[in-house]
């Protein structure tokens, strides 16, 4: 009885897998087209035609049905980033990180406040706003700058969708290395 049930389950599973696979193959072109169309709608109007053609060509170049869907999903992520916004994965990651880092953020915030410094430093440039901890010429300020921990509040801007995690760039790391050499 047990053996029969196992065999029947196996047969049923393979039939379902086969149906699912065939359905996936049939629906794949439409799914890819829809995903790419959704992605380009997130871009500025003057870039949509270009990326619609470019990303469709890219997905065509990739072998296999699953590969094409993965490329199309990637285009959605790319569009979020190119529109200057963090994607949903980055925002969730940043939110989780902020939750874990609340004690450290509070400690630094009140540490700077206690040293008589305005804790947060906001800089505006032509295309972005950056939020950092202040780095006064004190032991704490110097530690924050050297370790890059003064960038932690930038996570809040990622949660808000204003920045991408990619904004924590290699250049920053290189600058840190240079600073340490001094």
């Amino acid at each position, binding site marked *: 009885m047990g053996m029969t049930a196992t065999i029947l389950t196996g047969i049923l599973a393979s039939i379902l897998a086969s149906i699912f696979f065939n359905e996936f193959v049939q629906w794949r072109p439409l799914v890819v087209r829809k995903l790419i169309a959704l992605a380009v709608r997130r871009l500025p109007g003057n870039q949509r035609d270009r990326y619609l053609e470019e*990303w469709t060509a890219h997905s065509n170049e990739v072998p296999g049905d699953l590969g094409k869907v993965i490329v199309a999903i990637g285009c959605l992520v790319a569009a979020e*980033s190119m529109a200057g916004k963090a994607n949903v994965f980055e925002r969730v990651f940043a939110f989780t990180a902020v939750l874990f880092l609340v004690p450290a953020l509070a400690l630094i915030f009140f540490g700077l406040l206690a040293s008589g410094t305005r804790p947060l430093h906001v800089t505006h440039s032509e295309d972005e706003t950056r939020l950092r901890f202040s780095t006064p010429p004190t032991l704490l300020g110097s530690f924050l700058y050297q370790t890059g921990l003064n960038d932690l509040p930038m996570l809040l801007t990622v949660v808000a969708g204003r920045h*991408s995690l990619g904004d924590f760039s290699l250049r920053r790391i290189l600058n840190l290395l240079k600073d340490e050499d001094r």
Partner: protein
Amino acid sequence: MAKDPRLSMATLKVLGALMEHGANEFSGAEISKKTGQPSGTLYPILARLEAAGWLASRWEDGDPSAMGRPRRRLYKVTTVGRVKAQCVGATVRADLGGLAWA
């Protein structure tokens, strides 16, 4: 003059892959294959590098209806991009080690 792009390891990989092959032009799919960068990471990098003038792109020759498929967009490193990337590459090599094209 355009602002220099943000440089991450992924950006350097993309530049490295394009610079290794001289004046050759590559589509996004080819660059993705060479660098292992998925489309979600690759296209923002290509867009930033192009906006900064480090890369140039053009549509491949041919009529899409005659080819029966959409045209590919081909990318190559500009002279400015090559010079700037070599400067950055030299810094990275000095600080972190190991960029063959720098």
